[in-house]
């Protein structure tokens, strides 16, 4: 019932509706620009939302995240360059369709599938998040620490190509998060005599640096490389590009299966939409009657990964809202917005701020409708517009925006230096195969994990044994260890003798 009250709250405030539509449009455009992700857009816009009403701010950024996931498909289909990592799976069948002059049809399939996937994920979130929160309320510090431990391990070892570099990125995030005053003894840690660091390293400049400033450096390196030529979608044959029910019906089983795959993966911290998209693509191809057409321009090959990619969006909020553990980079960025507006994340959020949470879910549903309509009728126009924005003008502007955004968060030039250092670090991390999302998510988790660890030891009569004596805690520790072992085994098998 709360969701209907949430919808009423959203529709009764024209400003919230306006921010949702703006978020849908911005997310789609940003997602469609190769190299720029919705996480980068959200990072740049976070300081702006500090000055907005809480629901407008959260809805705006949440919808940018949703729409950005979908927007990546536009670049994948039109330019053979995925706008987001997840859209790489869409590219496999999307670009061949574009080469046959069917780009608009491919984009319509992507839009409808994304909207269905996203809607399924959100409905599952709305139905089960309250239950997860109730369970989370029963967890004590040892259980929480073991969940943090499993999250660190999954985030570090599953995202990216190298388990060593992934875990090192996560460990670096933990160490950087330790900078500042110790939460219990209030003594300085790793501040290197900079008094500005006593309050800890601020999240917003780090995020802007890692995702925006680093991208400017990456784009500067490849500024001379051209994107693959493609046909203008507005010049395609309009009749051939009309999507009929008969054409879309075979996609539906793939869309529903992929939606559930995406929703399940979304609940697990750190796995993210690219894994969901590729698993769904593989599973769809395995079950497809026309498997030999996949990879050559099958509509089902666009529908399956797109549904999974967007189904991740809603459920990735579940660990964030119920445990304070972000399931994705976007969720990690949203933490700062929740905090600045005075919301304490965790299971008690559903006792103290139930109304705003369900209003946010309602905003997500409205956002799906918004980007669905804009995308269905306007994706071709967005693609054409993006071709007209030259990288050589866009990225200098993003460069300048990153400085003013980092400054605006707290009105501090010290934050701008932090943004720069984080940016260069992020660029180097990407260049050498490290994992900036693992760094960010671990950075966000580390303080909570440390607090839970130290509280557990104070509760314990047997030191570290408390993590083994409590069954739930032990289960999560085992999950973490098993994930590392399985991943290491698989990678050593792939590496060969």
């Amino acid at each position, binding site marked *: 019932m709360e969701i209907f009250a949430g919808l009423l709250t959203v529709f009764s405030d024209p400003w919230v509706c306006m921010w949702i539509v703006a978020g849908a449009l911005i997310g789609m455009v940003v997602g469609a620009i190769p190299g720029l992700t919705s996480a980068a857009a959200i990072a740049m816009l976070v*300081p*702006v939302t500090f*000055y907005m009403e809480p629901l407008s701010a959260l809805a705006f950024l949440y919808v940018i995240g949703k729409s950005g996931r979908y927007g990546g498909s536009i670049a994948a289909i039109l330019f053979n360059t995925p706008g987001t990592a997840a859209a790489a799976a869409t590219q496999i069948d999307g670009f061949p369709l574009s080469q046959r002059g069917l780009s608009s049809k491919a984009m319509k399939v992507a839009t409808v599938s994304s909207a269905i996937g996203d809607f399924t994920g959100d409905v599952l979130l709305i139905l089960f998040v309250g239950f997860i929160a109730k369970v989370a309320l029963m967890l004590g510090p040892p259980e929480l620490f073991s969940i943090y431990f499993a999250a660190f391990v999954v985030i570090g070892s599953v995202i990216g190509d*190298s388990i*060593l*570099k992934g*875990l*090192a990125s996560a*460990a*670096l995030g*933990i*160490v950087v998060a*330790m900078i500042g005053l*110790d939460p*219990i*003894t209030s*003594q*300085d*840690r*790793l501040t*290197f005599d900079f008094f500005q660091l006593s309050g800890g390293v601020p999240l917003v400049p780090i995020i802007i640096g890692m995702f925006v*400033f680093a991208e*400017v*450096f990456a*784009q*500067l*390196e490849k*500024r*001379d490389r051209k994107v693959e030529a493609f046909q203008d979608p507005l010049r395609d044959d309009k009749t051939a590009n009309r999507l009929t029910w008969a054409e879309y019906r075979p996609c539906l089983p793939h869309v529903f299966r992929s939606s559930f795959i995406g929703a399940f993966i979304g609940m697990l911290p750190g796995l993210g939409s690219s894994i969901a998209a590729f698993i769904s693509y593989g599973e769809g191809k395995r079950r497809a009657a026309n498997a030999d057409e996949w990879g050559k321009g099958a509509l089902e090959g666009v529908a399956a990964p797109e549904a999974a990619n967007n189904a991740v969006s809603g459920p990735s909020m579940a660990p964030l809202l119920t445990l304070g553990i972000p399931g994705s980079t976007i969720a990690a960025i949203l933490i700062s917005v929740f905090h600045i507006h005075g919301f304490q994340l965790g299971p008690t959020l559903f006792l103290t701020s139930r109304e705003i949470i369900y209003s946010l879910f309602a905003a997500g549903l409205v956002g799906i409708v918004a980007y669905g309509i804009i995308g269905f009728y306007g994706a071709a126009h967005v693609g054409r517009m993006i071709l007209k924005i030259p*990288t*050589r*003008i866009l*990225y*200098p*502007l993003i*460069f*300048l*925006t990153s*400085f*003013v955004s980092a*400054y*605006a968060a707290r*009105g501090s*030039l010290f934050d*701008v*230096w932090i943004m*720069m250092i984080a*940016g*260069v670090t992020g660029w180097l991390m990407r260049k*050498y*195969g*490290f994992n900036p999302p693992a760094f960010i998510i671990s950075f966000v988790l*580390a303080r909570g*994990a*440390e607090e839970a*660890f*130290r509280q557990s*030891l104070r509760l314990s009569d047997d030191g570290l044994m408390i993590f083994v004596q409590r069954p739930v805690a032990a289960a999560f520790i085992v999950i973490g260890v098993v994930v590392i072992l399985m991943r290491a085994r698989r990678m050593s098998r792939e590496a060969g003798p």
Partner: protein
Amino acid sequence: MIAKPARREALAGLAMVAVGFGFFAASFGIDVREQGGIAPRVFPMAGALLIALLGAVQAGLGVARADPAPDGRMAAEAGVQDHARDTWHIAGLLALSAAYVIGINYFGYLVSTAAAAPIALYLFGVRSIPGFAAAAVLCPAIYHLVFFVGLGVFPPYGLWFDLLDVIQGH
């Protein structure tokens, strides 16, 4: 001669070891007090040690996988030229970034942005004089209006000079 990817992997591992040991050494600077015991050191030290340990394994794997460099002198020379050009661009952008922040500190936001905008465009390959002039005027004006007027963020005034002071008649 060791192939480039293996060398990169080994180099990445050594960098991890250096960063890990750097933080590990710095963790000894955290006071041990009776009230907290060694607890404040545990997470920083464990994280730093983990980075160093993973780095050592990474470096070891990089060296173990080292194959002889493939023969391809022309491709290598072209790669070296591209790499040198990229390095200059990156170094230029880094220098611009540092100079921009220092500029904001001493000359305020408007003047520094007016200077930084055309240089950033130049680094990305724009060669239009009217474009530079437009960027020098429009970028500071638009950012100022959006962030410092629209959102009400307090602007960073320059220590030595600020155009905003002049505009406001102070």
